[in-house]
């Protein structure tokens, strides 16, 4: 398996002087193609910062980051924009659909911005929505869709251009747990079917367990990096499911 992203001793500081915040204090990380990896950690530990760097929304202050064969620091803003447009999909916590556009137009926009000229964009946008189960909702505006449906549109939008990487910062945080789990299952199906690499963050253990690799961030550093075997995963899922059942029972 080839390396998608390689991060060496990356540091990121916000602000300057006494108000400066060390968001990342030397992160080393290699992500292979096809991974389905979660970044977990307490609030403020640097999850979003790390995702933004990997997604090329931001650049690091120190260290080296290689993504898809590019030394990211050497790319111009235009080069970064092009990389994002063509190779990286995003899913956001608050869905971030364009409110005036319909579901299909939102997906189509991703193709347009990617400069995609391969065939009928409208058709491909419709197909992408079909794949996430929204074939009947093509002409709905975001405010006519539930949160889960909106996030599915966002998934379709991220995937329609067949990117190498999808970055998702807390994609389930604004969804109830069942809907969140469903969206995550959808992401994992896409990961399996299309081989697209997913990197996402969460602090919900139920979501975390669905990942195959769990990175634990604390105070801007990777504290734990756990790659699970299949049996690990099943055991974990079972344990969490029982936990939740008990938890739910306790609520009654």
């Amino acid at each position, binding site marked *: 398996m080839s390396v998608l992203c390689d991060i060496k001793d990356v540091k990121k500081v916000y602000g300057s002087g006494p108000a400066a915040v060390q968001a990342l204090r030397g992160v080393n990380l290699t992500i292979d193609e096809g991974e389905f990896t979660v970044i977990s950690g307490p609030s403020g530990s640097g999850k*979003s910062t790390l995702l*933004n760097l990997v*997604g090329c*929304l*931001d650049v690091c202050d120190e260290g080296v980051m290689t993504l898809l064969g590019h030394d990211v620091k050497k790319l111009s*803003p*235009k080069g970064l*924009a*092009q990389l*994002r*447009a*063509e190779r990286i999909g*995003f899913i*956001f916590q*608050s869905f*971030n659909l*364009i*409110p*005036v*556009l319909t579901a299909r*137009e939102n997906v*189509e*926009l*991703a193709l*347009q*911005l*990617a400069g995609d000229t391969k065939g009928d964009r409208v058709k491909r946008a419709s197909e992408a929505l079909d794949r996430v189960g929204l074939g009947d909702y093509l002409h709905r505006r975001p405010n006519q869709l539930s949160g889960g449906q909106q996030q599915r549109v966002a998934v379709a*939008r991220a995937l329609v251009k067949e990117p190498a990487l999808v970055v998702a*910062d807390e994609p389930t945080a604004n969804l109830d747990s069942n809907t969140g789990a469903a969206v995550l299952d959808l992401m994992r199906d896409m990961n399996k079917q299309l081989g697209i690499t997913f990197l996402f963050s969460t602090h919900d253990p139920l979501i975390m367990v669905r990942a195959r690799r769990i990175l634990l961030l604390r105070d801007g550093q990777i504290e734990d990096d756990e790659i699970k075997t299949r049996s690990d995963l099943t055991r974990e899922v079972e344990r969490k499911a029982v936990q939740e059942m008990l938890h739910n029972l306790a609520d009654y």
Partner: protein
Amino acid sequence: MMLLRLAVLNLTRSLRRTVLSMSSVILGVAVVIIGQGVIAGFEDNAIRAAVDGMTGHVQIRARDYPTEGLAHPVDTLATVDGPLAAWLDANTQAWTTRTLFVGEVVNAGDAMPVRAIAIDPARDSEVFPRGSWKIDGTEPVSAQDGVLLSTGVAGLLDLKPGATVVVQANTTSGAKNALEVPVSGVFSAGTPMLDRFGIVLTQDLARQILQSDERISHVSTRLADRGDTEAFAARLAERIPEDREIVTWIEECAPVLAFQAVRQAALNLVVLALMGMSATGIANTVLMAAYERVREIGTLRAMGMTRPGVIQLFVLEGALLGAVGGLLGAALGSAIVLWYEGQGIELPLVMATGHLPVSNVLYLRSSFAVTALSAVFGLVTAMVASFYPAVIASRPAPAEAVRA
């Protein structure tokens, strides 16, 4: 295409704000068009008043003829010799003679000074069209018909067609002379120059009052094409006696046309102020949109839109505002101009000093070029106004914008 659709849809998001800032463009563009229509109308008006009322296109008169006040000396009258008459027949569309003199009209105890215009009844209307004249009674065609009084004179002396008045004036040799004549009618020509002090009579009758034989004071010509005026005047100048001079309508209108520059400057100021207002409105609209949509812009940036791309989107929104506003403003402005181009506006007689060539009905003049340019001006203003806010909109880093 998607970008255009996005821009259009974005404008519908805060419809009231959009309509408000668009109205300022509509207003600005309409005012430019109406203002230019008025200015062009004034120019036409002045030319029409001078050409149709007093000078024709090119006029021959005594050298150093007085131009100020009510002065029409009769000691410099002259005849038109045969060769000149023949040349004028061959080189003009029409020509005629007039004799202007200052006299007095007396009715019972009342008297008032008048500008008397003696005409050749057979030819005068070919040089000075009567289109805008309103006549109660008839225009005199012979000495027996008497005088046609302007509304100003008839009004002040309380005279009606059929009445009898005394016209008195100095003869060419300086003696006083007076004749009792009938009033053939009352006219208004729409030019205060004529309508306040004017009376019209035939050359025959004037000859009796002035003792002036065949001599006249003015020769007026009408050319087939007004554009030939200066060339014609130059050729005519070689054919007139030493003691005569030539005036063209262009010279006659100069004082009024000079006024045009002042009007144009005033309009430009108004336009500048209005456009400043619309520009502020549009800049504000685009800026508010920029602040409201920070997260959305961040999303677009994450999806690969560049900073110039964001600027383009916002300028496009401003441009759409300006384009629609410009078109509506152009429609509104030209509708108003076209209406008053046909209808005319009665001017208050403030302008009517009595010797400036103006007509008291102003017909606006429409111009396709002015209309199109004004609409484009609205569009360009909107684009320029939205540029800086668009730059601000594109400023937040994508990561920050997404977080907001």
